[in-house]
């Protein structure tokens, strides 16, 4: 973990709600950034006090660029959207425990902006010779990132409106998939999606990993603010999303 200054290289809107922020960071930190890890980004704007957590959606070892896909939510993400190229930006990184990259066939299930860390994971799995299928569900075109579909061969898009991929929820995609053909499953998306996925994945015997979100003050294990209930070793405990996660064993997480 380092508290670094990065330089905004590109910051472009993808839709009205989502933008892509690319930041150049010092070379020596790049190898430590793994799929599922995240950064706490400092925001210099009115009223903002805490840093904001964002998952790495990509790292380019050659150019030294890291990529974030960011959904505009409140004052922090609104302010970051305005950062011009060339702007310095302070980030604490890399944080958290990432995904376990495994060989074989992987099913990646993304809801909305949950695609961000899974994009990076998909790239990593593919690089390691694994096979990837992505089920990517979005509410509408405003939440859709077209370049995801172009980056991978097997992406199935579900949208709650017609005209974009199949009409339906990510869950519909999950239900209509023969899960037994996959060696492992990775999830990232809103709580409602994860809750709905629980019963569907109940009998799946392989590894299921999920990247969780929670409100965070520090992002590195100091405040105990990011508690998530986990059932592990036969007892309920609170784990820290920022340090024990954000990636957890899906079966252990109490939603």
């Amino acid at each position: 973990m380092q508290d670094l200054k990065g330089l905004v290289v590109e910051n472009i809107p993808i839709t009205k709600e989502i933008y892509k922020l690319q930041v150049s960071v010092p070379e020596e930190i790049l190898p430590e950034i793994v799929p599922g890890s995240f950064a706490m980004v400092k925001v210099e704007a009115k009223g903002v006090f805490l840093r904001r957590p964002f998952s790495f959606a990509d790292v380019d070892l050659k150019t030294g660029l890291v990529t974030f896909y960011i959904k505009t939510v409140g004052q922090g993400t609104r302010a970051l959207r305005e950062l011009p190229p060339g702007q310095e930006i302070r980030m604490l990184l890399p944080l958290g425990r990432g995904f376990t990259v495994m060989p074989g066939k992987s099913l990646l299930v993304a809801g909305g902006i949950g695609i961000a860390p899974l994009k990076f994971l998909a790239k990593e799995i593919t690089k390691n010779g694994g096979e990837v299928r992505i089920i990517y569900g979005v509410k509408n075109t405003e939440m859709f990132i077209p370049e995801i579909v172009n980056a991978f061969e097997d992406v199935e898009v579900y949208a709650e409106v017609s005209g974009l991929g199949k009409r339906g929820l990510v869950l519909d995609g999950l239900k209509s998939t023969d899960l037994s053909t996959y060696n492992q499953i990775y999830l990232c998306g809103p709580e409602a999606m994860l809750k709905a996925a629980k019963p569907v994945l109940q009998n799946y015997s392989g590894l299921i990993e999920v990247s969780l979100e929670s409100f965070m003050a520090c992002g590195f294990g100091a405040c105990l603010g990011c508690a998530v209930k986990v059932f592990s070793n036969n007892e309920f405990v609170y784990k820290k999303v920022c340090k024990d996660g954000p990636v957890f064993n899906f079966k252990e997480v109490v939603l």
Partner: protein
Amino acid sequence: MNLKVKIGELTLKNPVMPASGTFGFGLEFKDIFDLKNLGALVVKTITKNPRLGNRPPRVYEVSCGMINSIGLANPGWDYFCEKILPQIKDLNDILILNIAGESVEEFQYLAREAQRFDEIKALELNVSCPNVSKGGIAFGTDLEALKQIVSSVRKIYSKTLIVKLTPNVTDITVYAKAAENAGADALTLINTFTGMVIDVKSKKPVLGNKHGGVSGPAIRPMAVKMVYDCFKAVSIPIIGVGGIDSKEAALEFFLAGATAIQVGSQNFVEPGFMPRLIRELEEYLQEENIESIAKLTGLAHRGEENV
């Protein structure tokens, strides 16, 4: 130029330390700076038994600050002294153990235990946590309970005894005097302000525990006034805390009457803040040609009667 200050029997090499609960057990910050730089190391509150803490969400942002309802989550004394203490005892010469109890007996139990460990140099009694149903702030707002806890710990504990007060009272000087009279060697002012944030979408309180404690720059003017008022009311040293996010903010506390200061929420925003602050305070003394930081304590009272 000299940053040394005295708190009870301790001489700190500088007056900057973390506020309990905002620095974990220090281990998380080792990547960022050498903890030996700090004036002291104050750990997250330890209770006799382990505590899971409150239901999430536990933290949220507020204007110029944050709110938390961690609920004194900690592994309990036994685990602390077996597993954590050995890891952290060499991080800094001065380790201050912050403790809380649900009863006078629990405070006494922990004090007796702490007394056994040479590496624990002082106790900070947390009678001011707003996030637990038993003890906590209930003790800190009940004058009789406060006196009883402090004096019964004092009987057992011979090293430096610090009492951390809550700002959620009508007149903090009354509590400050009571703690002093009951035997405290120093006071830490202040813990968080009780508050609440409501999520307009769900129409419910954001925090799992509904209310929480507000910290950060938002509470600084209140904290500074409490330090200022207590400086007049007691003669033991005061450790000032509440919204310190810059050298200027820290200086406000010294001028108001603090001998040392603690940094809380700012550790989350800028984990390297404390070493920067120490450097800046040193430079400040140089620029202003002030021989010792202790000379700043209470300077804002100059010209007043009775000081």
